[in-house]
């Protein structure tokens, strides 16, 4: 046998055996006790090491999750599935209520607004904003060239025929790129659970808004007066909603004369507590206006005078003791 073969085999085999022994030794003697959840979370992640979460790779993110520094839903690539898997490992709720999505604070599409002229420049919002503010008369309106659509890495934004971006809450990951891109600053990140949105950003006076847009906020402040939990504040001729305070009762959308406020939920007519009630007081604690009364372990009752029909008690109840009667139901 040619000695070269022999030498190659022996030397390579020797090197490999030596290195394998070294690594084996190291894995036993230099073992660092780690939270077993770190490995599990790491396995649940996509493993692309893209760094979109803000950490140096998936393993760093996994460690941060286990240490409680990063949210379980912090992986923008994995989406809901990965975050719920991680949530299972961490024993926490998937916190879908914490998920934020982009919302457009303008309802004035091509149909609803008046034009101030014809824009023939570069077809991007940035250019239009820099030159003369596009075609629409309202200087707070959506320019409609879809810079947000272009910048969205998840294809969650599609420009509608009416010239307004439509955001798919399923696809939106709340990365905030469109919010940064929008030159008019009329996009914002709102909790996915928020169902009430004031679709206007105009600080113009009611008179001007009336002339330029069919669905703009005229600053009448009816919504702010109606809101049972003071979640709406009038700021310089514009109603601004505080998503933290809002209980999604939809009362503001009902009174808004211009239809600026969009309520995506169902209006509740009446709330009642039935005999299933075990007197746990969870509903009373959840009620934002203290309309529920009753002692511990006794049937609770809702004071219909005070009740604002927000339905929070329905969500809080564990024993199906709260009945909701919707307005659109006969």
């Amino acid at each position, binding site marked *: 046998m040619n000695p070269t073969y022999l030498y190659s085999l022996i*030397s390579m085999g020797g*090197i490999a055996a030596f*290195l394998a022994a070294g690594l084996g030794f*190291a894995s036993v003697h230099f*073992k*660092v006790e780690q939270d077993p959840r770190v490995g599990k979370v790491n396995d649940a992640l996509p493993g692309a090491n893209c760094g979109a979460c803000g950490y140096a790779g998936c393993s*760093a993110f996994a460690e941060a999750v286990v240490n409680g520094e990063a949210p379980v839903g912090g992986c923008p690539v994995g989406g809901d599935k990965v975050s719920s898997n991680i949530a299972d490992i961490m024993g926490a709720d998937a916190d879908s209520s914490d998920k934020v999505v982009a919302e457009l604070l303008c309802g004035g599409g091509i149909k609803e607004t008046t034009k101030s002229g014809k824009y023939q420049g570069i077809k991007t919002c940035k250019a239009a904003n820099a030159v003369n503010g596009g075609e629409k008369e309202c200087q707070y309106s959506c320019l409609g060239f879809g810079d947000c659509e272009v910048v969205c890495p998840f294809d969650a934004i599609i420009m509608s025929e009416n010239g307004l971006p439509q955001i798919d809450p399923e696809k939106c990951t709340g990365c905030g790129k469109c919010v940064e891109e929008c030159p008019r600053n009329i996009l914002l990140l709102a909790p996915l659970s928020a169902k009430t949105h004031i679709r206007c950003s105009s600080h113009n006076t009611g008179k001007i808004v009336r002339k330029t847009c069919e669905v703009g906020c005229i600053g009448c402040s009816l919504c702010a007066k109606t809101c049972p939990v003071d979640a709406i504040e009038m700021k310089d001729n514009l109603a601004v909603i505080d998503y933290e305070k809002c209980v999604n009762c939809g009362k503001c959308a009902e009174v808004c004369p211009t239809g600026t406020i969009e309520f995506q939920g169902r209006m509740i007519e009446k709330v009642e507590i039935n005999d299933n009630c075990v007197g746990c007081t969870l509903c009373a604690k959840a009620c934002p206006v203290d309309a529920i009364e009753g002692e511990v372990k006794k049937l609770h009752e809702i004071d219909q005078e005070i009740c604002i029909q927000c339905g929070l008690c329905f969500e809080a109840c564990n024993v199906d003791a709260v009945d909701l009667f919707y307005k659109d139901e006969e």
Partner: protein
Amino acid sequence: MEEFTQILLLFISTVLINNFVLIRFLGICPFLGVSKQVETAFSMGLATTFVMTLTAAATWMINTFILEAFNLPFLQYVSFIIVIASLVQFVEMFIKKTSPVLYKALGIFLPLITTNCAIMGLALLIPLNGYSFIASVVFGFGAGVGFTLAIVLMAGLREKLEFGDVPGVLKGVPVTLIIAGIMAMAFMGFSGLISM
């Protein structure tokens, strides 16, 4: 004294004149990929310097005592790859146990740099140039310092570029490549600095 001067000159020539990134065009991937922030770029450079110095020492020994001794130069590629990979793995485990602070600083960059062409290029250049052991280690260290210099300079430029008014078509990677080209040309100016 003569030897010391030679070593010093070798170091300077590796850092500036034969810079791995800008003159030899090795390790372009991390040079463009991890050069967005000075801080991370520096960590990457640190990890690279570390791995390169180790690689130089390890591969010199493998090459001299095994491959050259048995006249097996064709095994360079294979043996260097497994040696570098397992060595870095070993060192990573060692650091994790002994120095969590250093482990945090090098972090993910340590395993990432292992399979980089700059490391492999270094390992193959050493037998090609016939360096002694000390010269090899200095060559490896110098290559790492050169890489760090290039990547940190790049990161600094790119950080400033964030505020610059870059035309849309050149935004992002294109302008980075242009900068890399200009930097490479600038580094060519060092070529007359010393003659070995």
